[in-house]
């Protein structure tokens, strides 16, 4: 009997989270397209992109203890890589294979910088979306973690990067569209972006990518690496004396989080039709963090659901209270941080486990 119970618990531990992911998958892929208008579905797609980045933040911050305050940078790398391709696609559709984006003619001298050239290729763009953030995060993470920069210093450093990145984008209007960002895309890998069917397809791709990211972190969390990551978060020096360099463990989580943010950004561009400095700057990075904090950073589904909720909240509040909505959102975060410091999801599981131990005690 006891054995049966233990087997049941073990199965629950393995399959419970997968069941949760399956529910999210059904909600996003079956229910949402059936009940939401195309406009609302597209909005949900935007939140899904933030959720993809949020899943990575959950890994780096919730499990790894690294408060990544500048994920907008990686979100932007993916977003701009994708947007550059879409911009070129739009230009080539009307102006032939050598056409260049309209803003370069408008603000520049009508020539395109050489580093734009490879983004004419779809496969290269997809490759860049995955590899660019990985390379950037590896170099950055290596420098940061080997020097044992952590805690508030790490958070400030990443936040400063987001500021610098946005500033750089604003300052380079001839190369990146500056403050306006990149917009007016017409097609997505050959598919017309004005066709609602294609919009729905792009939404579905984003939703599937979110599910894939959830499965990836699910495997990471249950692996020995996941245990070691939590151990590193809680007692970094001790891990050194298990024969591991904590810098390498953190680096893996940081790089995976960066790639996920990049994927989110890459889908953000075709779904919203724009990527601009305000989507990747310090404020945008904090919004990404806020969703994760709200949902419960160390849980599997917490960051994704939190990000979706914050996204929805932004839309709902800005539609209902166009002038005051940011105050409401600020208030919400203060309340969450004061009363549920590890997120709403964590507070729920803490509550239920407390009730359960009380029952056992009786």
């Amino acid at each position: 009997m006891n054995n049966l119970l233990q087997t049941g618990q073990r199965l629950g531990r393995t399959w419970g989270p997968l069941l949760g992911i399956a529910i999210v998958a059904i909600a996003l892929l079956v229910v949402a397209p059936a009940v939401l208008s195309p406009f609302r579905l597209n909005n949900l797609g935007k939140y899904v992109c933030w959720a993809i980045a949020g899943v990575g933040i959950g890994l780096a911050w919730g499990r790894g203890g690294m408060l990544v305050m500048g994920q907008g940078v990686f979100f932007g790398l993916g977003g701009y890589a994708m947007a550059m391709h879409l911009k070129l696609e739009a230009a080539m559709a009307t102006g032939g294979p050598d056409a260049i984006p309209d803003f370069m003619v408008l603000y520049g001298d009508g020539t395109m910088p050489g580093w734009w050239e490879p983004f004419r290729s779809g496969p290269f763009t997809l490759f860049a979306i995955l590899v660019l953030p990985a390379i950037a995060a590896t170099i950055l993470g290596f420098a940061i973690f080997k020097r044992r920069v952590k805690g508030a210093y790490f958070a400030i450093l990443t936040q400063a990067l987001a500021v610098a990145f946005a500033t750089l984008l604003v300052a380079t209007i001839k190369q990146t569209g500056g403050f306006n960002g990149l917009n007016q895309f017409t097609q997505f890998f050959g598919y017309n972006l004005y066709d609602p069917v294609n919009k729905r397809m792009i939404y579905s791709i984003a939703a599937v990518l979110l599910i894939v990211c959830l499965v990836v972190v699910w495997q990471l969390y249950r692996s020995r690496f996941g245990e070691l990551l939590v151990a590193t978060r809680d007692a970094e020096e001790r891990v050194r004396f298990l024969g591991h360099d904590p810098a390498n463990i953190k680096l893996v989580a940081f790089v995976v989080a960066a790639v996920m943010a990049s994927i989110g950004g890459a889908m953000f561009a075709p779904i919203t039709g724009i990527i601009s400095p305000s989507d990747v700057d310090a404020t945008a990075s904090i919004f990404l963090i806020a969703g994760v904090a709200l949902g419960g950073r160390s849980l599997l589904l917490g960051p994704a659901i939190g990000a979706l909720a914050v996204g929805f909240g932004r839309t709902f509040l800005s539609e209902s209270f166009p002038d005051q909505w940011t105050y409401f959102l600020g208030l919400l975060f203060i309340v969450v941080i004061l009363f549920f410091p590890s997120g709403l999801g964590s507070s729920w599981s803490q509550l239920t486990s407390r009730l359960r131990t009380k029952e056992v005690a009786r």
Partner: protein
Amino acid sequence: MNDDYLEIRGLTVEFDGFKAIDGVDLTLLQGQLHFLIGPNGAGKTTLVDAVTGLVPATGHARYRNQDLLRMKSHRIVRAGIGRTFQTATVFEGLSVLQNLDIAGGVHRSAWTMLMARRGVPSYVEEALETVGLADLRDKPAGVLAHGQKQWLEIGMLLVQDARVMLLDEPVAGMSAEEREETGELLRRIGHERTIVVIEHDMDFVRSFADVVTVMHAGKVLAEGGVAEIQANARVQEVYLGRTAEEADHA
């Protein structure tokens, strides 16, 4: 003699001009319980810190033709040198089994790290039996008694295949019974390992030490068997004398 010994030559650790360790020579042989004693501030823990890469030091600390002083902490562990700390530092949220398992990184490739744990590896099972925590395997390490935590740490060193174990006051705060058991445990695993114990408790030293090194003010004052050390006039003066006097008064 085989090459399984740790040789320390001219080890010096300086903090802002103050020499915490001043030219220490030590040879730590396999199969002996080696005790490191001395008054507070003698440099015992600093010596272990230097050998395990926690503080920079000059001189040599040679093990199997590798100079430990030029290696990073995690490399030193991979080379087979393990240590514990004065306060037990097990992962309180993880179970006893998980604590032992997490120490098994030396047995694993990067790829298998990405896999979930399936079953209990044989080296973890062995360590569980050796340190006598088999019945508590599924308990969170946080609920263990103080002594059991120290045993768990020793078990983690066994799992990580430490050929040299540097134990910083493992029996501090233990009951007499627990001390006895710890001593027996160290004897059992000490045959094929080099074990160094930093200790204050003279009864424990008398019962289990094969070799004793007395440190004072960053230098080695004397080295030898327990009887030899107790007879040494200089040792009595700086260390044992004082405790002997206290014992007389008591």
